[in-house]
């Protein structure tokens, strides 16, 4: 038998669900001080998430997409990037975004129905949340192409879900990243569900990592609830990208512990037992166990940190709640650099109508 090609997809896991190493992580990613910082960031994200859900439940926020259970993946992705790199999120990777400088109040503004949430103070060049699934992946590939053509040492990193891995835009991004050998990292965050559709209904592929083979990219599967594995997977992909070795697809295995969004009721389609089992593998507990075992963390610290996070987030929430609705002309003012006359006339009419109220 003649063989045209063979492929092997590696799986990375270091820290098991019980908080003990199943394999020794590479030295360069396992600096305890840094891991501690990232752990605290994960806790911050979880606090933000629960406060946001509460805001929605009390009518103070629109539909909100929670990130419960994704903290290691999101924070690990953010940690692997440099400020000048580009991040193109889907809509729940707050953990990565906070690390890049996005303010929690901006997240709230966006889900609160205000475009100003997308006007990130930092980083100015990152892409905003993207609702049409996976289209951001192609924009990230386009950005990576711009970086390559301009000889800028920057990497474009984008995320989609297990559902998003079926989207043709994801394939297009992967294929063009391969064709142009772009500094591009496609993160597929496999949390088991795309609203009510389980992972197995999305595709017959054994892994989602292998989506990358269709474009000749480097493929990797990692335990997305293991911060060490996330960091190592991202490190490899970012290095390849920076060294001009082309793009990567990483599948992060995690789980969506919350409903899809606050508009969803997962009990309609998902077995509670599955969720319960997933809680045993969630990313924060295992890292807490490890850090505690290292003598780096204890209950006292956790309590103090929780208070600190709560305070900082409340400041953000208040900034959001106190924000004034944009004036009616905001609808017109950012459409064109040079707005057409008819549009300006409509704008005047709208302002006049407001004034009459």
């Amino acid at each position, binding site marked *: 038998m003649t063989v045209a090609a063979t492929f092997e997809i590696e799986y990375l896991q270091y820290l098991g669900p019980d908080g003990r190493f199943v394999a020794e992580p590479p030295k360069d990613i396992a600096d305890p001080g840094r891991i501690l910082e990232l752990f605290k960031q994960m806790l911050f994200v979880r606090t933000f998430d629960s406060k946001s859900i509460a805001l929605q439940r009390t009518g103070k926020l*629109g*539909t909100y997409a929670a990130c419960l259970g994704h903290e290691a993946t999101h924070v690990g992705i953010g940690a692997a990037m440099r400020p000048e790199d580009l991040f193109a999120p889907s809509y729940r990777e707050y953990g990565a975004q906070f690390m890049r400088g996005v303010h929690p109040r901006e997240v709230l503004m*966006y*889900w*609160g*129905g*205000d*475009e100003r949430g997308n006007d990130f103070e930092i980083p100015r060049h990152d892409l905003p*949340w993207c*609702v*049409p*699934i996976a289209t951001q992946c192609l924009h990230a590939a386009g950005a990576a192409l711009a970086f390559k053509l301009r000889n800028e040492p920057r990497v474009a990193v984008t995320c989609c879900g297990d*559902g*998003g891995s*079926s*989207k*043709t835009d994801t394939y297009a991004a992967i294929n063009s990243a391969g064709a142009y050998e772009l500094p591009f990292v496609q993160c597929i965050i496999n949390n088991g569900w*795309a*609203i*009510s*559709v389980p992972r197995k*209904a*999305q*595709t017959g592929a054994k892994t989602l990592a292998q989506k990358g083979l269709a474009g000749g990219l480097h493929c990797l599967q990692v335990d997305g609830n293991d911060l060490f594995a996330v960091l190592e997977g991202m490190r490899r992909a970012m290095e390849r990208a920076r060294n001009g070795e082309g793009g990567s697809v990483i599948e992060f295995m995690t789980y969506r512990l919350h409903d899809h969004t606050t*508009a*969803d009721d997962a009990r*309609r*389609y998902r077995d509670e037992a599955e969720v319960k089992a997933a809680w045993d593998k969630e990313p924060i507990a295992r890292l807490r166990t490890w850090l505690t075992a290292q003598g780096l963390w204890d209950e006292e610290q956790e309590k103090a940190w929780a208070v600190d996070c709560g305070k900082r987030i409340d400041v953000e929430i208040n900034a959001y709640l106190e924000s004034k*609705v*944009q004036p*009616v002309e*905001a*609808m*017109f003012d950012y*459409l064109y650099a040079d707005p057409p006359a*008819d*549009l300006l006339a*409509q704008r005047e009419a*709208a302002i006049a*109508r*407001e004034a009459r109220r």
Partner: protein
Amino acid sequence: MNVATNAKPAAETGADTAAKTDTPITLIEAITQAMAWEMRHDDSVVVLGEDVGVNGGVFRATAGLQARFGSERVLDTPLDETTIAGLTVGMALQGMKPVAEAQFDGFMYPMVDHIVCHAARFRTRTRGRLHCPMVLRVPWGGGIRAPEHHSEANEAIFTNVPGLRVVMPSSPARAYGLLLAAIREPDPVIYFEPKRIYRQYKELVPDDGEALPLDVCYVLRDGTDVTLVSWGAQVKEALEAADRLAEDGISAEVIDVATLKPLDFDTIAESVSRTGRCVIVHEAAKTAGFGAEIAARLAEESMYDLLAPVERVTGYDTHIPLFRLEMKYLPSTERVVEAAKRALAAG
């Protein structure tokens, strides 16, 4: 070889116990009821889309259908609208009657290619050898405080495309009758569902399998002074405006276009021949919205009847803003009233 389907015409399936019809239902329930009726009577009807199965659709339009008809008749698809559109065309070409769902208006753009290049063309391309009996259901329009891309009025993308039909109900009864007609139609139908009024009110909708014609505008209210023409959710504002105008002694006729393509212009022209004034109300941006076609027909065929310039009350030529501002985008009853009064003052 001709592809035999296992579909049986309604007549052959014999006695069917219609659902209880003494309880008023909402527009979205009428949609579910229509799909259920037709699935019961025609085995070739299948429903597909994202989350339409066990979840019953994010709006619950397909609630209960998978439990009732099985997962071979109600299929969740992979998350890709190109996939949904292309599979739907392929199934339709081989004798099935797929009813596909686009989860929201803003997610249907990747379907445009298969709709325009294929669904709308297979009959003409093959001189009638193959055709494409499919329905694409699209929850449509704004006003529900939803996230970005969940509130778009994009019907104008399809109204210039030959070979399509474009339908939009504005009441539970019309939702039922028009959806039955759409599924039975041998050519492709885009069926827009005004989600703002999915649950606005209930009415009695007998589950009798009676379809409504797909080429008729409905006169919802007779009037003599001005004709208000609208479709979808905006019909509500048109009717409210008629009420308000009546308070001022102005008699407004209200027309629900219902089927945008093919347009029943005669009903509109007949009304305008009596009122001499026309206000067109729609949610989409003004420029090149479908209202333009109605105004154009008036300029061509009713010019001598017009006593006042045609008025369009529409969304602004901007994207619908995120929800904090969206109600300022949607044409209000007040704007319709003002336009009608302008038309009356002009005459």
